[in-house]
C-alpha cells in the first residue's frame, strides 16, 4: 500500500489553536521544503499538511484547528497513536539556494517556511523571517526561527513586535533592505499581495498555495487554480510569482 505508517512521538501546544506533532515514520522520506503529505487518520479523514521539518525518520507538522479532521487531531490524537501518510507530494520551493532570503509567513504558513529556513541556513544563505500573528497569544515558533536567522514578528492586536499586518511589515522591510528572493506562505490575499509587490520590484518570489486536495496525484482536478489550470497538488503547492502573474491581473481569484 502507498501509506507509510507513523507513530506520534510528541504533541506540543503552540497556541490555543495550533499544535505541533512530532511523528516517527517506519520508512524514511526525503521531502523538499514546500512539499506536503496527505495525512490519513483511519475512519476520520485525510488532509494535506506541509512538512514543518523532516530529518531521517522524524517529521513535524504544525496543525491549526480548523474543522473535522484537525479538530479530531487536536482533541483525540495522543502520543503513541498511529497515523498514515502518503507523500511527499507536489513540488517544493524550486530555486537553488543562494544569497539573502526573506520569508513572509502568516499563521500555519510558518510550517513550510520553517523547513525552508533550515535548508537555506544549512546551504549558507542569509535568512530573515517575518512572522505575522493576530494577537500576542497567537505567537509561536519565534525561537525556532531565531535559531535559523533574523526574525521580526508582527501582531495585529497586541504588544509584541511590529503592530500591524505582516504585509505592512513586509512593505517596510523590503524598502530598506536588499534580498535576492522572497518566499511567502499564508492566506491567499497575503500571498498575492506579496507576489505583486515583488514582481513590481523585480524580485524573485515563490508562494505556497492551498486548494481542496482530494486525489493528491494531479488527476481529479479538485485543486486547480483557475483560470490557470494549475494544480496545487502536482504543479504546486509552491508557485513562482511569474506563473501566477496572469491571475494577479484578474479582479477575482477563482478556484
Amino acid at each position, binding site marked *: *500500500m502507498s501509506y507509510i505508517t507513523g507513530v506520534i512521538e510528541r504533541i506540543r501546544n503552540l497556541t490555543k489553536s495550533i499544535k505541533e506533532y512530532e511523528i516517527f515514520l517506519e520508512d524514511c522520506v526525503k521531502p523538499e521544503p514546500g512539499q506536503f503529505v496527505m495525512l490519513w487518520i483511519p475512519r476520520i479523514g*485525510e488532509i494535506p499538511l506541509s512538512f514543518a521539518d523532516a530529518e531521517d525518520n522524524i517529521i513535524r507538522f504544525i496543525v491549526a484547528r480548523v474543522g473535522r479532521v484537525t479538530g479530531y487531531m487536536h482533541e483525540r490524537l495522543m502520543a503513541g497513536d498511529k497515523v498514515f501518510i502518503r507523500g511527499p507530494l507536489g513540488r517544493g520551493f524550486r530555486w537553488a539556494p543562494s544569497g539573502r532570503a526573506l520569508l513572509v509567513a502568516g499563521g500555519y504558513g510558518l510550517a513550510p517556511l520553517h523547513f525552508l529556513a533550515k535548508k537555506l541556513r544549512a546551504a549558507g544563505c542569509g535568512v530573515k523571517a517575518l512572522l505575522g500573528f493576530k494577537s500576542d497569544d497567537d505567537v509561536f515558533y519565534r525561537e525556532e526561527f531565531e535559531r535559523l536567522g533574523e526574525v521580526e514578528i508582527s501582531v495585529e492586536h497586541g504588544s509584541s513586535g511590529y503592530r500591524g499586518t505582516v504585509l505592512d511589515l513586509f512593505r517596510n522591510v523590503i524598502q530598506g533592505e536588499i534580498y535576492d528572493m522572497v518566499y511567502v506562505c499564508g492566506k491567499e490575499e497575503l500571498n498575492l499581495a506579496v507576489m505583486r509587490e515583488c514582481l513590481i520590484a523585480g524580485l524573485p518570489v515563490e508562494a505556497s498555495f492551498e486548494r481542496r486536495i482530494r486525489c493528491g496525484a494531479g488527476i*481529479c482536478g479538485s485543486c*486547480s487554480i483557475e483560470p490557470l489550470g494549475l494544480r496545487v497538488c502536482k504543479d504546486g503547492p509552491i508557485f513562482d510569482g511569474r506563473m501566477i502573474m496572469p491571475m494577479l491581473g484578474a479582479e477575482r481569484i477563482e478556484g
Partner: protein
Amino acid sequence: MSPDLEVELARLRLRNPAILASGILGSSYGLMRRVEEAGAGAITTKTITREPREGYLNPVFVDLEFGYLNAMGLPNPGITAFKMELRRAAENIRIPVIVSIGGRDESEFIEVAEQALDAGCNAIELNLSCPHVGGYGLEIGSDIRLACNIIRSIKSISSRPVFAKISVYQARPDIVSRYIGSGADGVTAINTIRAAAISVESMTPILSNIFGGLSGPCIRPIAVAAVYEIRRELPDVPIIGVGGVDGWRAALELILAGANAVGVGSAIARKDLEIFREIIEGLRGFLASRGFKSIKELVGYAQRL
C-alpha cells in the same frame, strides 16, 4: 511523410486517438486548456450532474502499485456552474469536448444534456457505469431498458454524437447492440471496476466510501477483452477503449483490439500530461517502423487471421 494519427470517431475528427478520460482533470476550463496544449486528441469532461455534488470525504484515492482505486463520489459544480467553463471551452478549445453526463433518472440526463449542448459541447458521453455512487452510473446502466430510453431521449434533442460509457459488467456485444439500436453513436469501454482496499496496518477500509473503482494497468486486460469482443461482433461501432492506457504500447494494444480511440485516465498520476506526447510519438514511431500510413489501418488489426 510522417504517419497519420488522425481518426474519425462517430463524425468527430480527432487529431490523434488519445482522449482525456472522464473524471480526469476535465473539471474546469483551465485544466481542459492545458490538456489540449499537452496534445490530447479530444477531452471528456468530469461527469456533470444537475445539482452540484460535494463528493465523498477523503480518502478518495489510493495508489496501488499496479493501479488505482478511487471513490470521488462524482464531485462536480453542477451543470449550471459548469456551463460557464463549457462556454469558454467552446470558444477557445479546438479539439472536441465530450461532456460526460450523470443522472439518477432520465429527466436529469436530459436536462444536463440540454444545457451541455446549449453551451456548445461537441459530443456527449453517458455515464452508465460509475460503480460506487448510489443512484448514478452503474445503477442506471444495469437497467438496460432505462439506459436505452435515456439514449433515445437524448438523440431526440440533438444529432451530436452520443457515447454510452459502459462497465465491464455490460461490455457485451448484445447489450452494446441494443444501445446502438437506441441511437447511440458509439461506446466507451470501460469504466472502473468495483473494488476496495483494506489497510492491514489500520485494519480498516481505506476509502471513506469503502467501495471504489479500480483503474490503471491492472484493468487493461479486462478492457482489451471487452473491446475485442465488441469489435468482433460489431465491426462498425465506434469504440473509445479505456482502461490502463499508460503509454503508447497500451494505447496500441486497445487499438489493435478494436478501439478507434483510447481514453487516458489515471496514468496521468504517474506520467502527468506528458503522457499525451509519449503516446503520440510512440504511435507515430511504431507506424513508421512497420510501414503503416495511418493509425486507422490498425484498428482491430489483431482480429485478422
